[in-house]
């Protein structure tokens, strides 16, 4: 019942977005913004093409490495700062101010260090994703109710048993939330890097299409990325909801 209702709401939202798109198209004209119908026709033609496959796989590879780095480093920092209270207290404000910093400012530094290479784009993507993963993992560990640890001690669980059966399940929902936000921000970082300086990838395609005034291709790539990000977020959000303890 709730599921069908939510599906209807999403559908209504999509229809409204499409209508708004069409309306904007009517106002600004075809050269600036092609309407939804021609764009979707172009999409059907463009997505199976080799050029799209090449650039999409370039972005995906870059995104995959960046995501692994974000998750690995973010979880390590988060666990360390959650378990070791002093490090957490010292590091939290530093992490928060780094989180709110427009990291795009630092991209030229990354470029100077790595050059126009895959590692530069991966680093830049990971810079975006690491912080939310670390911050949410840290809060998750800090917020474990002390009574859980007490009952683990009462039941005389070994430290491994405590970690696996108490700490891990207790922190999981919040950690997954961190991973979800890390996913979106890593994607943003990778695309920004491609838009600023790259010769491959979907971010590059958008900028390239803009410079060549190919509005259809530009909007098509934006739609594909929008769909990818929205779908991935919906799946991760669904997992998160499944994991939340039902109180």
């Amino acid at each position, binding site marked *: 019942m709730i599921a069908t209702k939510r599906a209807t709401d999403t559908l209504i939202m999509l229809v409204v977005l499409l209508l708004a798109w069409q309306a904007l198209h009517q106002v600004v004209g075809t050269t600036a913004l092609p309407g939804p119908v021609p764009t979707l026709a172009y999409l059907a033609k463009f997505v199976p093409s080799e050029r799209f496959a090449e650039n999409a796989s370039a972005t995906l590879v870059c995104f995959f490495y960046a995501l692994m780095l974000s998750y690995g480093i973010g979880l390590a920092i988060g666990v360390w700062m959650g378990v070791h209270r002093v490090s957490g207290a010292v590091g939290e404000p530093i992490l928060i101010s780094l989180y709110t910093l427009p990291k*795009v400012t630092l991209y030229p530094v990354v470029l100077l260090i790595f050059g126009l290479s895959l590692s530069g784009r991966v680093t830049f993507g990971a810079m975006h994703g690491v912080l939310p993963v670390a911050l949410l993992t840290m809060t998750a560990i800090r917020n474990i109710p002390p009574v859980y640890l007490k009952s683990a001690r009462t039941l005389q669980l070994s430290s491994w048993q405590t970690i696996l059966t108490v700490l891990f399940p207790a922190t999981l929902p919040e950690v997954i939330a961190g991973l979800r936000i890390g996913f979106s921000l890593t994607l943003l970082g990778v695309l920004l890097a491609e*838009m600023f300086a790259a010769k491959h990838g979907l971010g590059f395609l958008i900028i390239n299409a803009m410079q060549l005034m190919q509005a259809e291709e530009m909007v098509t790539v934006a739609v594909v990325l929008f769909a990818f990000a929205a779908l991935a977020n919906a799946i991760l959000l669904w997992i998160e909801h499944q994991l939340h303890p039902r109180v």
Partner: protein
Amino acid sequence: MSRVGWIRIAVLVIAIGLLEFCCRLGLIDHRVVIPPSQMADALVRLLISGQANDQIVRTFGIVVVAALISVVAGFALGVVIHALPRVRQALDPFFATYYAVPIFIFYPVMIVIFGLSVIPIVLMGVATAIVAMIIATLNGLDRVPRVLSKVARVHRMGTIATALLLELPAAAPHLFTGGKLAVSYAFIGVIGSEFILAPAGLGRVISDAYTDFNNRQMYALMLLLIIVATVVNMLLHVVDQRWAERRGIAKS
């Protein structure tokens, strides 16, 4: 200051000192990173010479305008959406997805529509910031205690008096949090756009300096951006925490 505060300062000082040391010793090539002392020196000289003043005023002006539009319009939209539960329900999936979509992919679309001017940059700033304000307004209005509306009825207060004297103050801490987020998101939206493509502005100047291998200029302006963003965010954060504590919704 507390012990933790001292350790934090020590960590930062050591990190900057280490960077300075590595640069001076040549462990880090000066074509890649210049020593922090030189960055500060370059920034002071640049500010005194006034060469970049126009760009600085332009960029921070756009951030302020974008943040103001987001806060005012976001609050107004939040109030309207809160009054219409059915619309709000339908918008739920939209809000849940909004910040997951890399919004900058629409910047080129805006450039094509509005031309390479200040408008797409303001719009990107507003687009990144406004939804945070809407969500914060909805949260704030949700958490207005029921008892307050009863108090209003007991005192026979009108709608406007209730809104201004009871609901607004009760929702204020959440609204402030929204405003804080709006400012830092507007920063990200505006500067990110300027970096990708812009006729002028700090982001453009930094990216030009990068292309020209003008490291002193690049690092000076980067330092400026980092200092301004950090100071503004820290101030807002401190005020936000105070408000939250007073209303008993402190996060920690």
